[in-house]
């Protein structure tokens, strides 16, 4: 843990009606969990009966699967920041038929507690991830529940194991038949038996064609289905037995996406610049990934071990019941029956847990796989930050060339003209001198703007908190800044976060049509956290436009993330997190 930190994850809070869009598929009332095609969804229960809140972790841009790693211990969201509090409190349905309630600013009593009341979130900072890792009930009630639920769960897992076996066959059939044919025909031919004209040549050709078609059309879909199946197994095991298995699938090649998938939060077809993968690319992507092979191995093992472990207790129970119900009873049989039944009842949860642990053993990525992902992630963010840097330099060069440089040339020409006129026409010379002065003022103003865009002076002078305050003062909407920092983050982080806040505030003004915004700054648990909330129209989407994507990239260079909650109709809550340490300032003034 603590090693793999994949890139940006979009997290949005879906608020139930009347505050946010409610789709029955995503929010079935009364369901203990919500399934989504994106990744993992957890539902939180707020103190009131009508209150609920969902955190949905979606995929980062084109990187399905990565976010799950993040969920297993990396990302923290400070639910106590006023921004999040605002979003959470908005979940509360107004009581007594009121249609609109003003958002409360005080934290909810008892704050947000997770399903099954495992975790009380009333501390100042609660890592959501720790809440997201499901636990199991303990104690007598938990034990009883485990016994009662064991048959159901066993059947479900058995079903998955059998489905896996079928899938494995489907995956294997094409390549298997082909290789058998090659072994049976080509190898003997090569060994010098000559091409025997055989009667069943036509049939063989048909088999070859079918096998090829399997490889061409069925195999990629089957491999993706394998992935989905193991993901489902992972999810169920995590939910039931608290066995979290990290995902370590390689992301598809940059700018592409596998058929039938799309990043969370994007509309169908709404992904700019993503190309469907071709057959060869897709096969390379899937087959070069160790995780695919791990999944296949698991399917093979689970097809054998699954029935043994899962059906074993059932067989025992049935045997026990038969022994108990047999007509010609003697004491020994009766005792054996009871022992068998007790063994079955007690053993079933144990067997299931063993199955879960086996799954973890087989499915968990190796350290190397995680390192590979980490390296790929670092390479990508490095590339992006280099590109950003180069683009910035080009912009500065262009601004200087078109702005200050041009003005200085014009100024020189004007002064030259004034010099020539100074003896003959003093009035005209004076006018030219005034013109030159004005030009110098304009050049200065342009340089000032340029400097502001490169490294804002207040940031250099006072640090992030005051720079954000200065931004807030300059914003055309009312912005309240809360929170404080005890020291200064490293300069690059400071700068990235400053420009991120600047971009977000620009969005608040330009797109959200907000009247009020709130920024919260704080540093806790080794990360800088900034929340930006506005009362605007909502519907912010990083996949549209480049602003939010740019912010994500800037932050990703520091392993930072951006989380967005922006249901249509608002409010938009954006939380940024950058892991960093604060430098405590030396005592001065």
């Amino acid at each position, binding site marked *: 843990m603590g090693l793999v930190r994949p890139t940006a994850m979009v997290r949005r809070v879906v608020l139930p009606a009347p505050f946010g869009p409610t789709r029955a598929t995503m929010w079935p009332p009364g369901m203990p969990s919500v399934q989504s095609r994106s990744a993992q969804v957890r539902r939180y229960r707020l103190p009131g009966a009508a209150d609920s809140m969902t955190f949905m972790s979606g995929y980062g841009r084109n990187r399905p699967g990565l976010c799950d790693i993040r969920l297993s211990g990396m990302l923290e969201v400070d639910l106590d920041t006023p921004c999040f509090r605002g979003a959470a409190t908005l979940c509360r349905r107004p009581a007594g038929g009121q249609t609109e309630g003003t958002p409360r600013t005080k934290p909810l009593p008892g704050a947000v507690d997770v399903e099954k009341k495992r975790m009380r979130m009333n501390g100042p900072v609660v890592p959501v991830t720790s809440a997201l890792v499901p636990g199991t009930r303990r104690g007598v009630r938990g034990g009883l529940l485990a016994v009662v639920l064991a048959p159901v769960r066993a059947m479900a897992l058995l079903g998955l194991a059998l489905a896996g076996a079928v899938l494995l066959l489907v995956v294997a059939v094409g390549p298997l038949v082909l290789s058998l044919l090659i072994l049976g025909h080509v190898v003997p031919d090569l060994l010098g038996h000559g091409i025997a004209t055989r009667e069943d040549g036509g049939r063989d050709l048909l088999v070859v064609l079918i096998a090829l078609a399997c490889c061409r059309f069925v195999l990629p879909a089957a491999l993706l289905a394998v992935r989905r199946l193991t993901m489902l197994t992972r999810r169920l095991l995590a939910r039931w037995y608290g066995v979290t298995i990290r995902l370590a699938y390689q992301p598809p090649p940059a700018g592409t996406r596998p058929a039938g998938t799309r990043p969370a939060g994007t509309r169908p077809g709404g992904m700019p610049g993503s190309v469907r993968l071709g057959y060869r690319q897709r096969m390379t992507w899937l087959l070069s990934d160790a995780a695919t092979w791990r999944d296949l191995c698991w399917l093979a093992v689970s097809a054998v071990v699954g029935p043994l472990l899962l059906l074993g207790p059932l067989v025992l129970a049935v045997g026990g019941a038969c022994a108990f119900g047999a007509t010609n009873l003697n004491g020994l049989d009766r005792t054996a029956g009871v022992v068998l039944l007790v063994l079955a009842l007690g053993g079933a949860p144990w067997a299931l847990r063993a199955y879960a642990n086996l799954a973890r053993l087989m499915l968990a990525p190796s350290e190397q796989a995680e390192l590979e992902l980490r390296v790929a992630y670092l390479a990508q963010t490095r590339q992006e930050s280099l590109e950003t840097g180069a683009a910035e330099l080009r912009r500065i060069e262009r601004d200087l060339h078109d702005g200050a440089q041009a003005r200085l040339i014009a100024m020189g020409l004007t002064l030259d003209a004034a010099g020539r006129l100074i003896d003959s026409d003093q009035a005209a010379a004076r006018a030219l001198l005034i013109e030159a002065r004005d030009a*110098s003022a304009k050049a*200065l103003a342009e340089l000032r703007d340029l400097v502001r865009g490169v490294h804002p002076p207040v940031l250099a002078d*006072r640090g992030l908190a005051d720079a954000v305050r200065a931004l807030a*003062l300059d914003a055309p909407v009312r912005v309240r800044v809360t929170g404080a920092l005890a020291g200064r983050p490293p300069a690059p982080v400071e700068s990235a976060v400053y420009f991120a806040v600047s971009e977000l505030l620009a969005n608040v003004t330009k797109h959200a049509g907000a009247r009020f915004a709130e920024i919260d700054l704080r540093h806790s648990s080794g990360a800088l956290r900034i929340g930006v909330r506005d009362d605007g129209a909502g519907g912010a989407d990083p996949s549209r436009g480049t602003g939010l994507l740019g912010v994500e990239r800037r932050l990703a260079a520091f392993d930072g993330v951006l989380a967005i909650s922006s249901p249509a109709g608002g409010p938009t809550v954006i939380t940024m997190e950058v892991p960093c340490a604060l430098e405590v300032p030396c005592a001065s003034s």
Partner: protein
Amino acid sequence: MRVVIAEDLFLLRDGLIRLLEAYGFEVAAAVDNGADFLDAVRSGRPDVAVVDVRLPPSFTDEGLRAALQARAELPGLPILVLSQYVEQLYARELLASGAGGVGYLLKDRVLDGAQFTEAVRRVADGGTAMDPEVIARLLARNESAAGPLARLSPREREVLGLMAEGRSNAAIAQRLFVTERAIAKHTAAIFAKLDLQPSDDDNRRVLAVLAHLGR
């Protein structure tokens, strides 16, 4: 009128000395860092001080901090702060005490010697001199928030801007090529629309307007 100058760039310091002397000021001291500046104003209280925000050794807001400290030690010491850029945050800090005799101008304003020295004199007399850029941003921020500023006519807004910079009615009238009486009428209307107590004192009037805008 005795001036103390704190500016670390030699060329600019030299230029300021020459400019101020050309307009009849007496430069009592010209220093290049915050500590020396504090020593200079402590040893002989000048009529006005001109300070650059960014000074050594830290090259951050050392000058501003020195200016604030000087005003804390010598209440009412008129100080004009110069900077390559203006920040509302700093303007607020300078105005926070609620007293006059403060100026905050872009260094560019030095280019217009007459206007600049007029601003220095105004500050020395206990008035204020806020850079038009600060005021423009202050107004822009107030305009969008459908506040009382929306009730002002364009002309009144123009007058409000000039007033907020710290100019007297006479100066505004001269600038807008109208009579002083017309300006007085405008200011009365502005004060009524913004629900401010009218005041004959120019300085207090400016501070009231700035406080209103900076809310």
